């Protein structure tokens, strides 16, 4: 890319666009292991400034990409070479909280965990709770339709967003909500990975904090027994608020790191949480205890205090940090399979890792069949990345063969874009492309993500020379 060209462009934006090497380096990355070379990065603080940035990019034929905290794992926030990164982390105000209606208007840069902290005095919280919730933004949650352990009973981000103020790729602003459009443009926008425009304000639904919570930690002698117990709990008509599984290697790693009291002798550990009114929690816990016993539970503990409960969740949510004690690098996968296929697919995942001589650990949202196999490696070892990618593709393949889907909560981004044809027909993809075209006819908002090349006719315009894709 022509450096002079980029400097001239950025001067036109009166210093609003930063082009120093350090900032461009940071803006070129996200939570994936991919990288792009943006033209510049700007940090708007108002909707009008986002509009200015989009209009400027548009006038120059430069693609743009919205960015939050950059914690996404599928490369959705990796900028196209030569694009403008519109970083929304300075739009981080909670504009209003309506405790009576149990809603809040927030800017996209508000951190997920901060929102729940700010609303806790009203006894309310925002339900989606991805493991990255201490650092990921609500805007990013909207872009990826993020999940988290407690989405089992509460639903993913889309179920908790009432309205969106959006700057469209045309530079116009509008609001998407349930009342003022015929088609559910709000629903279509959520999970569009920044390809339909930029959300500049978000009305979220807040839910009451539960009066009673029981968090149970259950050990099993095999992953198979644990997986069967998961299916049995749901089949019994109990929808816990969270139903997570950890296998023995990750449990050991986490326990050494957090000391949450997980059973070190278990081959699989379930974290089962049930919340709500008093008797439903008491009765639900009793039923869960009976079911897991039938499936050979080897240990059963209930957190007695809020501190114990917090420690269990800290253990679960910092699992990825614990991996650093074992291998310097890891690759976290995300597929979904029907619950009844959990045991079978987990066994296939183990075989795949063995075949490729990789260590694998599993810590995942078992209740909704959302697998997160973690392949661990040292990328300094020659040829290891080939094995990691082969194993990853194979995990995707066995998940789809089991009737599953490509992603449960991380999204497609660049990582799984070329797997889309494994799940969808050309016609399915064509209609996804049609939707994209209605929002962004010129394909300038985060181009070349999600849809594999050749599935539509846009996303080819206005791409500067030297594009990496």
């Amino acid at each position, binding site marked *: 890319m022509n450096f002079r060209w980029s400097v001239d462009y950025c001067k036109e934006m009166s210093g609003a666009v930063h082009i120093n090497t350090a900032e461009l380096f940071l803006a070129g990355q996200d939570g994936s292991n991919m990288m792009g070379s943006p033209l510049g990065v700007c940090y708007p603080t108002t909707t009008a400034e986002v509009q200015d940035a989009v209009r400027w990019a548009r006038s120059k034929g430069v693609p743009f990409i919205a960015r939050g905290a950059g914690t996404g794992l599928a490369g959705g926030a990796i900028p196209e070479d030569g694009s403008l990164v519109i970083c929304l982390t300075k739009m981080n105000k909670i504009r209003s909280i309506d405790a009576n209606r149990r809603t809040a208007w927030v800017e996209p840069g508000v951190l997920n965990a901060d929102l729940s902290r700010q609303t806790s005095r009203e006894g309310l919280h925002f339900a989606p709770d991805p493991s990255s919730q201490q650092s990921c933004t609500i805007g990013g949650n909207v872009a990826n339709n993020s999940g988290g352990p407690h989405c089992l009973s509460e639903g993913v981000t889309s179920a908790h967003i009432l309205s969106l103020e959006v700057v469209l790729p045309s530079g116009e602003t509008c609001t998407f909500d349930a009342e003022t459009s015929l088609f559910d443009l709000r629903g279509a926008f959520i999970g569009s990975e920044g390809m339909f425009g930029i959300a500049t304000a978000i009305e979220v639904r807040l839910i009451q904090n539960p009066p009673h919570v029981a968090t149970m930690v259950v050990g099993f002698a095999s992953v198979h027994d644990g997986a069967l117990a998961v299916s049995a709990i749901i089949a019994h008509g109990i929808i816990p608020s969270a139903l997570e599984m950890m296998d023995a290697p990750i449990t050991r790693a986490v326990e050494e790191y957090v000391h949450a009291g997980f059973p070190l002798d278990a081959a699989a550990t379930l974290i089962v949480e049930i919340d709500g009114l008093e008797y439903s929690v008491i009765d639900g816990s009793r039923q869960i205890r009976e079911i897991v016993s039938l499936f050979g539970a080897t240990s059963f503990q209930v957190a007695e205090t809020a501190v114990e409960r917090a420690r269990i969740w800290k253990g679960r949510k910092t699992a990825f940090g614990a991996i650093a004690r074992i291998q310097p690098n890891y690759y976290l996968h995300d597929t979904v399979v029907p619950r009844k296929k959990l045991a079978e697919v987990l066994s296939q995942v183990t075989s795949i890792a063995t075949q490729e001589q990789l260590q694998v650990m599993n810590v995942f949202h078992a209740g909704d069949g959302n697998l997160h196999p973690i392949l661990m490696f040292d990328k300094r070892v020659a040829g290891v990345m080939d094995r990691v990618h082969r194993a990853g593709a194979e995990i995707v393949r066995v998940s789809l063969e089991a009737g599953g889907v490509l992603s449960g909560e991380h999204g497609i981004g660049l990582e799984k874009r070329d797997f889309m044809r494994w*799940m969808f027909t050309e016609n399915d993809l064509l209609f996804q492309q049609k939707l994209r075209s209605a929002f962004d006819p010129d394909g300038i908002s985060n181009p070349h993500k999600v849809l594999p090349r050749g599935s539509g006719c846009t996303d080819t315009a206005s791409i500067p020379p030297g594009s990496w894709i």
Partner: protein
Amino acid sequence: MFKQAVNFGGAVEDLQTKIASSDSINIVGTNSTGVASNENEDEELKAPAGIISYEPDELMISVFAGTEIREVNVELQAAQQRIVIPDWGTIGGAVATRRNGLRETHHQTLPNNVLRCTVIAADGSLYQAGGQVVKNVSGFDLVKLLVGSWGLLGLIVEVTMRTEPLPQVSQWVKSAHPQAREQASKLYRPAVETLIEGVTYLLLEGHQNDVEQQISLLKGFVLCEMPSLGHQYQYQNLNFLSQEPVRSIERGIRKQFDPTNKFNKKIAAQRNLLT
């Protein structure tokens, strides 16, 4: 090799052929909304009916969109389960008109419970959105677009939905007192909270002791039956006000999905979506 199987048999293939060769199609279910009534010579087409698969343990059911909801409910009740849609019309009709019924106030409304749709497009081809799992962010969310699309984006022939276990107890209460809503705010997440003609209705569900305890917190409420859904039958004006960029996207979507204005012209005209 791994693509979702699209093989729904002869009835769907016949519809595909008819749609491919027709210029003007009116999609009907039981016409319970009154919106889609046929006033001209359009060909009237209805999705096939019947349950395709029901797996109570997976909390999921797949049906042909022309299946009547009451028929589905018979199956579900036998397994102590239910779906979120009120008990009238067809599944496809409820999905196409985003009919939540009284459970609108609860987050588990219809859009969040539809997992997959199979649709016949204007050219007679089939496209599928979503998947048969409860959590899915694989590609753009066409399912959300189809729920409430009023037949303007194609004929929905198949729907996969979440089912949910029946609660142990389900009790409606009501109050016409002006402060009834303040009373309701003392409760922990009633399944439904709705105001109909000045009367606040609450649906309390769950463990019997919890429901009784919640009712004891309320002053001035009386037990009642489910309120009538009669108000839902009112004529729906689809030409409500929208911002111009919203209109423009709606027109763009219709043009992309149905470039020759084949489906539901009357509804498209009402919304100014004829292109």
